[in-house]
């Protein structure tokens, strides 16, 4: 655990080492996230709700999505880069350390631009989420579980690169989950909707947490927690099994 924390501290120091670049990227991401609110604002100018989702529900969906997504793509940036690291033999530096590789690998790089997502998500909740201590605790709880589902899904699909040697599937999986998580799960029907709660768990990254913020339901919270646990277990297993097929590259600086 000390090694993970020390690595994370180093990654944060590296990310903020150039304050001008850090803050400009953070600001750019906040503006990027604001543009999604503009889109939803335009839509809800035309209709009061879409399949039961109102403007305030969408604000909470965006708050959870940007917070959980920001955690995974910012401080845990290597979750997204895993296929590239596997394909190019970029895990060597981590494998040489006397620690479990996956946790260190995940915290080894911070993508500054996605830290803007976290700032935006938390700020959006504080402005539009009617914050109270209890609601804020719920927000932290559901956003954390959503981040676990999202990170685990990326590690799970990224680990397929150990077997296929290609990152095409994980690229598609990443883009698909981000896209599908950005919209209320209820606009979909049939097989697509079932997919969002199972193999492609986009509903657990934003829609289910946002529903919990609207009205907390213990059984829904347990389902979310169980999903996080299941995907985390599957991701760890896939990475561990896949690592046996990893081919080193004698490159020491990419992870």
């Amino acid at each position, binding site marked *: 655990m000390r090694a993970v924390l020390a690595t994370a501290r180093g990654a944060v120091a590296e990310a903020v080492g150039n304050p001008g670049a850090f803050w*400009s990227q953070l600001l750019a991401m906040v503006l990027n996230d604001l543009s*999604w609110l503009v889109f939803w604002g*335009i*839509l809800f100018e035309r*209709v009061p*709700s879409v399949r039961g989702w109102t403007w305030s529900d969408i604000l909470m969906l965006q708050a959870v999505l940007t917070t959980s997504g920001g955690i995974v793509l910012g401080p845990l940036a290597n979750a997204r880069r895993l296929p590239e690291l596997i394909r190019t033999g970029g895990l060597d530096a981590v494998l040489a350390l006397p620690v479990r590789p996956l946790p260190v690998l995940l915290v080894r790089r911070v993508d500054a*631009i996605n830290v803007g997502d976290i700032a935006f998500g938390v700020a959006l909740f504080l402005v539009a989420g009617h914050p109270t201590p209890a609601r804020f605790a719920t927000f932290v709880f559901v956003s954390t579980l959503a981040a676990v589902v999202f990170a685990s899904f990326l590690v799970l699909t990224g680990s397929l690169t150990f077997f296929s040697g290609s990152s095409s599937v994980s690229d598609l999986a990443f*883009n698909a989950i981000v896209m599908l998580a950005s919209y209320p799960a209820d606009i979909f*029907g049939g097989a697509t909707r079932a997919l969002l709660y199972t193999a492609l768990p986009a509903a657990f990254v934003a829609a289910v947490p946002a529903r919990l913020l609207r009205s907390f339901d213990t059984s829904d919270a347990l389902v979310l927690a169980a999903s996080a646990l299941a995907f985390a277990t599957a991701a760890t297993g896939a990475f561990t099994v896949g690592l046996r097929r990893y081919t080193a590259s004698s490159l020491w600086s990419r992870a």
Partner: protein
Amino acid sequence: VTPIASWPVEAARSAARRSLRDGGLVATLGFYVVVAEVMGALWRATAGSRGADLAGYDGAELTWYLFTSEALVMCLASRLIERIGTEIADGSITVELLRPAPVLGVRLATELGATVPRLAACLGLGLPLAWMAAGPPPRPWALLLVLPAALLAVACNVVAQHLVAAWAFWVRNTGAVWFLYQKAIFIAGGMLLPLQLLPGPMRAVAWLLPFQAMAYPPARLAAGHVEPWLLLLQAGWLLVLWLVATAAFAAGERRLQVVGG
């Protein structure tokens, strides 16, 4: 020996061959289907809940609009601005300066060569899917205009991305700009929704910007609104963007300093 004047053509053909061989085409098509399905479902749900049309579009027209507009953006290389900016900032573009052919010309040809097969694949897949989701095209013969409009839209977008990336000659880092450019296409370009749905002041601004040429016209045509003048608008914007991008690259190349080799 290939004549210098043929370099852009050769670059485009080579890039097209690579694009077809590349496994990324499958990922592009997969993501395109997901995005188009999501946006189609959202706007059909919205039009359905309203029970009538939205700014002149019914649910079927919106489906045709979105399957077309998404194809125009999905077919482009992701984070192109960031990649060009990095190649300028780290000096790798200097190798291209050694060639007896304009850097911008060869780059545009290469990018368009790689993009056109992906565009054909996205539209080839997307238009039948739109038909399955929403019925036949509102005005089938309007689809004849979609193809030239789509090519002009993609060309405008590629040239504009090079223009924005040229900023790297001065600031070195264009990574963050990519996100903002992308969102400008999404909203002011009409990718996520027809421009008629924008609120008044925002719509007025969008009509003045070049982003409208990059997604809206082909999508509007596919939705059954036969307005051939949209192609002239696109051609005008393409000329303007090309002239400005050429000037920006010329100024940037004069300014470029590279340390080491």
